[in-house]
């Protein structure tokens, strides 16, 4: 007996791989409940990823990543005399940061760039372009600023770049969508936490006797709860990684569409948010599940 009690036997080595001593840093066995929870949370995280990916594309499309929002107002070169009053009237609008006349040199440089370096005379082309006034808008922007710019331009017989105005308005819509995206993310995160919590609660119920016994033998609370919190954390992080993998086919399938809109979606920027977000949600679910374990004093 003494001999076998000192050195771990061959049988012990065999059993050690399947041994799962309860409590502490030891994870509970991974079963069908966990697989189901992982799949559901992965799909939910995938939905969140798609929402933020779409926002990323929208932001690239409207150019809201730019620090300043600018619109251009054009005046025919035959009406040069009204240019000064146009600039003055635009400056009078509340919510305008700056108004400046675009120089001929800048116009020519833009034309050369637009022509793509082809062997054409950009200078002669740019002579036929109208005079351009660049208006920089203040942020945050008042709701009437764009209409006022339109009114001033119309009064001075100037033309406004409507495409730019539409992008500015699209940027406003994206701002609202971003708030909705945050709202959806929070709601989905809560739902995911509840799914993880429910799964862990089922496991806890199945192992209630074990938890009870550990407490009766003087286990510390963290020792009893840690395996479940670890499991929630890993389950969430695993679901986050699965959601990230599932996101790539969507990025690849929309490659042509992205190219047409000059959008380049990046899946990599979502890797860490998905994994850490999933882990946080999983840990939160585990904390909710274990918070309801009956307190030791009322256990008996």
């Amino acid at each position, binding site marked *: 007996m003494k001999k076998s*009690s000192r050195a*771990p036997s061959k049988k012990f080595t065999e059993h050690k791989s399947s041994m799962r001593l309860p*409590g502490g840093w030891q994870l509970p066995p991974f079963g069908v409940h966990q697989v189901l929870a992982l799949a559901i949370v992965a799909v939910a995280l995938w939905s969140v990823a798609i929402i933020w990916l779409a926002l990323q594309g929208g932001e690239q499309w409207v150019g809201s990543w730019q620090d300043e929002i600018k619109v251009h107002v054009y005046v025919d070169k035959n009406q040069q005399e009204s240019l000064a009053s146009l600039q003055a009237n635009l400056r009078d609008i509340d919510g305008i940061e700056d108004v400046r006349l675009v120089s001929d040199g800048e116009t020519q440089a833009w034309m050369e760039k637009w022509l793509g370096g082809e062997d054409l005379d950009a200078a002669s082309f740019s002579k036929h372009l109208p005079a351009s006034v660049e208006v920089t808008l203040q942020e945050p922007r008042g709701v009437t600023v764009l209409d006022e710019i339109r009114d001033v331009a119309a009064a001075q017989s100037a033309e406004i770049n409507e495409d730019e105005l539409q992008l500015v308005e699209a940027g406003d819509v994206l701002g609202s969508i971003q708030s909705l995206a945050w709202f959806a993310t929070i709601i989905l995160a809560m739902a995911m936490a509840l799914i993880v919590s429910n799964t862990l609660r089922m496991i806890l119920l199945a192992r209630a006797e074990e938890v009870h016994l550990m407490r009766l033998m*003087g286990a510390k609370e963290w020792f009893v709860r840690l395996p479940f919190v670890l499991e929630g954390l890993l389950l969430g992080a695993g679901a986050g990684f699965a959601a990230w993998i599932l996101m790539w086919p969507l990025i690849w399938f929309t490659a042509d569409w992205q190219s047409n809109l000059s959008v380049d979606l990046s899946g990599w920027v979502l890797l860490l948010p998905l994994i850490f977000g999933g882990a946080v949600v999983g840990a939160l679910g585990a904390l909710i599940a274990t918070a309801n374990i009956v307190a030791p004093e009322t256990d008996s």
Partner: protein
Amino acid sequence: MIHMSNLMMRYKTGKVALSGINMDIPQGSFVYLIGESGAGKSTLMKMMYGGIRPTSGQLEVQGTKVRDASEHQIRELRQRTGIIFQGNRLLNSRTIFENVALPLRVQGWDAERLLPRVKKVLSFVGLEDRLWSYPETLSGGEQQRVAIARAMLSNPSLILADEPTGNLDDDTARHVLDLLMALNKLGTTIIMATHDLHLLTSHPGLVVQLRQGALVTGQQHEKV
């Protein structure tokens, strides 16, 4: 070892489970706690490991005043107390090794460190060869011996046994009691709640009788 003074327990329902118990149990005693169902045996046992707290009076177990003890002190008391539950309460999904290892596992011991200790206590109860079996494959008597091995693993100075022979035939019950007696001879205080009064004839000890929550007798039972 254990000191009780005007010990009283009244449940929220108003039922008085224990009333005015005064008793001292010295270190190394073997105590039978007897009485009818509902006499207060289980309440007293639970109180001795801090499962419930007295409503009034004093209960001091191994230097811990149960009524005023913090949760940390209760945990420490439980780590120094071996408990044999009614119906043994082994975990059927875990091996005998994992079951027996539990009291020291909760104190952070790892498998390598636990193995020799678990083997030692299992050899004491004669089940060393069942280390990797599951409880369901053992007979009732063997399961109760595993429960004893689990209770003695952390070498506690006090073992509380709640009806450890309840579902066993006479021969097996005597064998279980032999083991508890052997532990007692090694210096462990044993408090055993039981209905099997006939066991007292072959295994003498201090008998404490409860009736409706009150102490009836506390005397040395002579071997017949």
